């Protein structure tokens, strides 16, 4: 499964979720879905905007975790 480490990156950048949402123009609800792992998928466009804002790579946000 894919684990989203948005909360880790936000903590590293000392940034709040609502500030990130405002910066990239996505609702807090949607970002919250992504942060809590409830989202079924993420668009490249959204991923690129988050990476740009947090100055990171997609690999810093998404981590593959084996289910075994």
């Amino acid at each position, binding site marked *: 499964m894919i684990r989203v480490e948005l909360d880790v990156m936000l903590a590293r950048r000392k940034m709040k979720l609502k500030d990130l949402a405002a910066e990239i123009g*996505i609702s807090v609800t*949607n*970002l919250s879905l*992504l942060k809590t792992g*409830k*989202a*079924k*998928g*993420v668009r490249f466009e959204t991923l690129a905007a988050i990476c740009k804002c947090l100055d990171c790579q997609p690999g810093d946000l998404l981590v593959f975790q084996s289910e075994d």
Partner: protein
Amino acid sequence: MNRQTVLKITVILLRFLQLLCLMGLGLLIYDVIAFSIDPSHNFVRWEWYMNETLTIAQGDEEYPLQSKLSYYFNWLQITLQLWLMLLIWQNLIRVVGSVASFKTFIKDNAASFFKIRNLVFFLWILDTFHLFQELGAAIQMTWGFNLEILLFALAAHVLALIFKEGKRLADEQNLIV
């Protein structure tokens, strides 16, 4: 013709059919009251089961009088059928209305089509059996198998499944950020 115009025309057409059903029900209520007061009343041609048309009698001698059992059976059968048709049009209007307002894949639409399927199936069951008894004569019974109605029920079932799948996909789409 654009999408909205087509949907608007559909709604108008369905409302017209609904109005026809209501008028039919009104006529039947009038008829049952008149028949209860005077059993020789002969307003609606009740041999509709023979040629599947419901017409107004031209004169007293044109159509045979029927027994009370036959009258009330036919009255109940056709009243129920009209009522079911009214409910079918009502559900279709609801679905078309939601499609017109760009809320195509909502939970209610699949439920509406499942309801339509059940209503049409019940309509089909009601249509399989007809009874007529001329006054003083033996009861005539006919059985029929109307494939068109059954196909309509099947179409409603397939549409319900499509709308259910559409709702699932729409929900999934909402979880993509």
